[in-house]
């Protein structure tokens, strides 16, 4: 029984991490009772489980993930959606529209449209399949899409959404963070947009440093005071009703949810906004997520880890 790394140590592939009754989890492999890192990342011991938090890597879909994609093809009742990573996604009309719908589904969404959707099924042999029945899932209008490394998304969201909410509070922007490394941003003006990009890029670069939320918050406060009130608010307010990222509640979608067994709406939220929502003590929870559902997700995650 021995552990060969410091907490948060940057480890490299092939590095021996632990020996004995330890369990190999994400980013590690077990060979003859020895656990090695399979990635460059930060080593972590939880209980007797050893894992490596990835610092890089392509987007691999996971059920319940919120993703932002571009429609690249309309074929029959399916849209093909580019969500980055190795697997092109498809979205069936049944998982996006209320029936009956027109034969020509390009009337609703067409090539080039950017959508926020949820991964409803994925295994590495087929899929991923997307759905758009959840709350806030829709065709995105205006703004821009920023690409960041998908491995950095949890940090951009922060613990229970702390980071992203802090950024939104400072900048008063609309934003949606896809687990696939795409961030949709709509800002009142270009100065604020640049600041939002700077914030996201800084988090991406410094994702494995500590006290990042504080530093970003300070930076934003300082820069915002420079921008001041001199800049006109250029957004047209018509779409403010869908403003608040994923947590925007859209009654329309709720009505539509009788078909195809939609995922519980809150799940996509749990995954995207509060990925690591596991502890109960903090009260400043982003969301109206209920505890039982947290646990449910938690169980699912545990199982996933076990499977590895």
């Amino acid at each position, binding site marked *: 029984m021995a552990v060969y790394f410091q907490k948060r140590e940057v480890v490299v592939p092939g590095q021996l991490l632990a020996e004995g009754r330890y369990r190999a989890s994400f980013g590690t492999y077990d060979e003859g009772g020895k656990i090695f890192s399979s990635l460059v990342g930060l080593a972590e011991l939880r209980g007797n489980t050893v894992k490596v938090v990835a610092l890089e890597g392509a987007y691999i879909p996971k059920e319940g993930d919120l993703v932002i994609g571009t429609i690249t*093809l309309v074929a029959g009742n399916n849209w093909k959606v580019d969500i980055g990573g190795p697997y092109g996604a498809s979205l069936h009309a049944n998982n996006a529209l209320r029936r009956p719908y027109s034969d020509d589904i390009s009337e609703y969404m067409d090539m*080039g449209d*950017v959508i926020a959707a949820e991964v409803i099924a994925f295994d590495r042999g087929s899929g991923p399949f997307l759905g758009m029945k959840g709350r806030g899932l829709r065709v*995105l209008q*205006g703004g821009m*899409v920023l690409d960041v490394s998908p491995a950095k998304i949890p940090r951009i969201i922060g613990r229970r959404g702390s980071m992203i909410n802090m950024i939104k509070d400072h900048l008063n922007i609309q934003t949606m963070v896809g687990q696939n490394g795409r961030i949709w941003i709509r800002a009142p003006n*270009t100065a604020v947009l640049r600041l939002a990009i700077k914030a996201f890029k800084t988090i991406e670069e410094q994702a494995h440093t500590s006290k990042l939320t504080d530093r970003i918050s300070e930076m934003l406060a300082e820069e915002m005071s420079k921008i001041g009130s001199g800049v006109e608010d250029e957004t047209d307010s018509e779409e403010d009703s869908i403003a608040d990222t994923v947590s925007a509640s859209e009654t329309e979608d709720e009505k539509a949810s009788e078909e195809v067994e939609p995922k519980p709406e809150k799940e996509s939220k749990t995954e995207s906004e509060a990925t690591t929502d596991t502890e109960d003590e903090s009260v400043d929870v982003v969301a109206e997520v209920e505890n039982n559902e947290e646990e449910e997700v938690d169980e699912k995650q545990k199982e996933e880890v076990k499977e590895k």
Partner: protein
Amino acid sequence: MGDYSTETISHIDREFISDLLRKGERLDGRAFNEYRDIEVEVNVVAAKAEGSALVRLGNTTVVAGVKVLVGEPYSDSPDEGVTMVTAEMSPIASPLFELGPPKEDAIELARVVDRGVRESETVDAKKLCIAEGKKVYMVFADVYPLEYDGNLIDASSIAVNAALLTTKYPEMKVEEGKLVQTGEVLSLPLKNVAVEHTVAKIDDILILDTILKEEFVQDCRFTMAVDKNNNFTAMQKGGGSGPMSLELIDQAMDMALEASKDIHKVVDDAVKSVE
């Protein structure tokens, strides 16, 4: 490189870039006629290439190398050497570049950069002659993009010029029918240096030195080679089929003339750094 009309460009990207431009802005805060930061490092392949340069134009990086060989002249120009520029769109530089034989746009890149050098007669072909009708110097400048974030043409032009201007090669002569080194080291005989400037047209707006996101939505681009005496020595309209009015072309030429002073200086400074 430049014509993305067959790719699916997201509506958000397209509108976002056009909206910004209509407001007179660019994503990175540059003016419409402003280049990104340019860094030039010469002699990066000092051990094998006779001349070389690495150019960083914002996040676009290219490396150019020059080989000087001895070969036989073309029969219609027995006293002239040969200069040739090629470029590849190596897949190392961008997820958009594919493996396989060069496609049209890679060939266009090479041809446009080549014309910028050849049509301005950067290298004096007559002075590349070793023995008339028998031996001449052949100068090959080859460009490899390493990182592609827009405007490969101008980056390549700067790199090729910086590499040609710092090329050193051993002097050869024909002695008793044999090729021998004289022991002297030569620089290329230069005649007239021109640098290329590429302007993109998006709606009715012209911008210099596009980043990739801008290139994605351009209607077309327009490249001009400008020498130090404000002559235009080569032009190419490409990167999409969008038409351009004479008025816009007039405006583009002014942008090129204005930018060319700075770009010539960038090249000259890099050359001076090793003299």
